């Protein structure tokens, strides 16, 4: 599936990263879309988490509440986005602990704590395969800016 994303949502995502990560901590954002129109990303969510240099963990109570909220608003998580200090790639931890375990789920990594220009320069996009492994995919093959 190719997801449509607005520039405003991408900017909001970078704002979360810069404000929360302070250029020294990892942080995550989630892109949601309604089940009636899954290809249209309509919401950016900044999860409650504990961050430190080298990683982040989502708050368990927040995750429970968020799971119920997803049901209430009839939305699904299409892409998890997080930042790395330097190069963008998927670590073993990133591979093992995604928020969604479904073939086709996307994980986008933004380099340099998202302090660079708003966009996908040097970003890394990977996708869950039917066997549960991750495979890098070209960003333009899955995400389109509108």
């Amino acid at each position, binding site marked *: 599936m190719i997801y449509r994303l607005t520039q405003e949502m991408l900017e909001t995502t970078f704002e979360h990263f810069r404000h929360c990560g302070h250029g020294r901590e*990892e942080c*995550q954002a989630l892109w949601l879309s309604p*089940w009636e129109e899954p290809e249209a990303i309509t919401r950016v969510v900044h*999860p409650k988490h504990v961050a430190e240099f*080298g*990683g*982040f*963990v*989502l708050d*368990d*109570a927040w*995750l*429970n509440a968020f*799971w*119920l909220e*997803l*049901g209430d*608003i*009839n*939305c*699904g*998580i299409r892409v*998890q986005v*997080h930042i*790395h*200090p330097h190069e963008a790639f998927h*670590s073993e*931890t*990133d591979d*093992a*602990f*995604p*928020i*969604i*375990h*479904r*073939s086709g789920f996307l994980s986008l990594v933004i380099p340099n704590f998202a302090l660079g220009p708003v966009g996908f320069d040097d970003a890394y996009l990977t996708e*869950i*395969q*039917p*066997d*549960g*492994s991750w495979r890098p995919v070209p960003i333009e093959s899955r995400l389109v800016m509108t």
Partner: protein
Amino acid sequence: MLENVCRYPSEAVVERLREAERGLETAREKEREVQKEIVEAEAMVAKVIEEIENPRIFTVEVLYDGVKKPFEVRIEETVKHLLDKAIRAFGPLPNPHTLSLYKDGKELADTQTIKEAGIKPCDVLLLRPSKVKGGV
């Protein structure tokens, strides 16, 4: 010798008394039957209330990624059995071992039965990863 023709109580009155006594016995028999029916009805009411409060088979909902699906469960089944059913229904979900069921914010132990886990009819259970994290 003259026959005594005056009897008290009279035959007619004695007969009325016998009739009344038979009627009383019949009424008492009916009362015993009704009493038995009341006891049976009370037992049935208690049984139905017990079934309503503690049903053996009922439906719960499982929520994954914003989608709810109904599942019929039996109180003696394990949570793992329901978890496997949910993963198949929402699937294919790779790496199913990373997923668990949650009720009232708490992760349910796979080995517990539905009854032991305190799962009730119409409960909404969350199917979600036990941990979500990332890092270099």
